[in-house]
């Protein structure tokens, strides 16, 4: 059964969609850095995107501000009991504490076992050595002191000059400086900051993934009644991409979407639902059947990437 026979009007559009999907996959693949472990196995590490890193940075800065405000507030509430001198002490102590928060927040967390600040952890990022070796404390220190140069110093100078009303072009220069450094990760393939460059580090995206139940394990239980068998012609229609989409649908979508998908698959493969059979049962059975079929073909060296992949 060819695809054109089912939906001729959409063929052009579907072709476009497929090409867009392929492009997106290429981009994704470009993010992967393969690291060969001493055991000789390849680990695929994913470089984090600029957006992820920027988001983590914003989170961290926000958290630093919260910590600083908490310190000032706590000290102020204690010092409030005393007179004016108490306030002066409080301010000096707060300044010292803020100095430590500002300079050692990133270093403390990145030297730690998770090699990530809270902001990075929230977005599933961590710092790693670019060559796959140990992340040393020195590398962490180097990359974070350079952040000072890249961002905080120009910014603080900007604010202090702004107050005195020094000529505008200095401010513009500083802004350009700031922008160059902040946007630097956009212009290299590893998304490295200057600090990463000097320290030999990179930031990777490695969120925790839960091991969910195998969908294929449900099917045998469900088919205790009437079992659903698909012919190999029916299973030949779809490819790996569709299988993965189906996996996502089964794991995380609403009943309506499942119903829609079930209907579309049934129409396409020419399958008539038996009475008393729910969408989920049908989809799970089809998933198991399709996966088995495709995995078998894969063992023979034929990867059917998607439904257009006719070999």
């Amino acid at each position, binding site marked *: 059964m060819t695809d054109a026979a089912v939906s001729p009007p959409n063929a052009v559009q579907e072709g476009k969609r497929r090409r867009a999907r392929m492009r997106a996959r290429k981009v994704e693949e470009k993010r992967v850095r393969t690291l060969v472990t*001493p055991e000789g196995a390849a680990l695929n590490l994913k470089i984090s995107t600029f957006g992820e890193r920027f988001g983590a940075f914003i989170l961290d800065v926000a958290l630093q501000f919260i910590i600083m405000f908490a310190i000032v507030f706590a000290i102020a509430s204690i010092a409030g009991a005393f007179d004016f001198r108490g306030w002066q002490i409080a301010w000096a102590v707060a300044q010292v504490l803020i100095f430590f928060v500002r300079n050692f927040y990133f270093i403390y967390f990145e030297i730690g076992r998770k090699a990530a600040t809270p902001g990075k952890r929230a977005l599933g990022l961590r710092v*790693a050595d670019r060559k796959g070796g140990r992340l040393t404390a020195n590398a962490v220190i180097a990359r974070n002191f350079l952040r000072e140069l890249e961002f905080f110093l120009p910014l603080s100078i900007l604010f202090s000059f702004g107050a005195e009303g020094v000529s505008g072009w200095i401010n513009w220069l500083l802004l350009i400086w700031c922008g160059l450094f902040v946007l630097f990760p956009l212009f290299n393939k590893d998304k490295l900051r200057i600090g990463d460059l000097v320290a030999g580090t990179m930031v990777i995206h490695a969120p925790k993934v839960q091991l969910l139940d195998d969908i294929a394990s449900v099917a045998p239980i469900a088919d205790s009644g009437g079992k659903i068998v698909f012919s190999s012609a029916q299973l030949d229609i779809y490819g790996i991409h569709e299988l993965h989409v189906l996996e996502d649908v089964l794991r995380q979508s609403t009943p309506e979407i499942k119903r829609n998908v079930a209907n579309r698959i049934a129409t396409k493969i020419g399958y008539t639902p038996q009475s008393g059979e729910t969408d989920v049962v049908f989809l799970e059975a089809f998933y198991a059947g399709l996966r088995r079929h495709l995995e078998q073909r894969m063992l023979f060296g034929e990867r059917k990437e998607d439904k257009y992949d006719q070999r």
Partner: protein
Amino acid sequence: MSDRVMKSYRFREEREADWKQLEQIIQRAESRGVGGLSDQDMERLPGLYRQAVSSLSVARTISLDQNVVAYLETLCARAYFFVYGTRSRMSERVAQFFARDWAAAVSAAKGPTLLAFLCLFGGALLAFFLTLNDNEWYWTFHGGWDSRNPNATYDELRATLYETDRDIIDMLGAFAAQLFSHNSGIAIFAFALGFAFGVPTAVLLIYNGVYLGSFFAVFWQKGLAYELTGWLFIHGVTELFAVILAGAAGFMIGGAVAFPGRKTRMQSMREAGEKAAMVIIGAVIMLFLAALLEGFGRQLITSDIVRYTIAGTSLVLWLAYFYLPRQDTGNRRD
């Protein structure tokens, strides 16, 4: 589905328990450190890790279950970072830094340190003689806001060196302010700008020297050089040493970028960065000590002799700490 024997399904069924166990061990290790692991865990870890890694390669070729492959990818990465990651504790690292690494890094960088020293004091000497010859030079280097300028009288200048009417709170304030003064900024800047072949580092150091030298010349002309030196160097030995070391760290990186030798530029910069980081964190510690000396010491101690003694002692201590050869006890940890 009469024969439900799917290869990937059976594959997973057989190994799942081990994966879960590895995950638990890694979870514990990540939240509580190596100390949180029992002997049994430690014994099982290498085997479980190797098994997970081989599971991953198998899963990539036989399984089309996205979730399993993604799970194994992240599990293996986490396990890898733990197994081959940093082993020492924070306290050990810190102890080792003070015992050996810091001094070793500083004494290994004698060349850049000398260069930074020459930049700073060369600039100072230049500005000193320029200002002695013509007071106008002072105004080239300084803003008008400082009361310690060539137009000030002997008594005014002398008063700034011996402020005694301050109590402990003012000192604390001075100390805190010192932390945020331009010195720590300059130190970090001098280091961070190093990668541009060290040129901005040199400019920064010379500029600071110029600032210092012209300032010194003002007091010299009024016959207050002896007193100023005591006032300046009670903390200045530590502070200027820190600035010089920060500059040296910048030159280390600059030199590595400019003259990578047989290595690639990236590799060379990265190796220098490792060493320079140690020098710069040390410089920050020195600046902290200098701030303590400036905030408290300078106000509490108004005797010139004692000021000179502290300055001299701190210089001897720093030099001995950094450059005296020491026994290598072996067992290095990263």
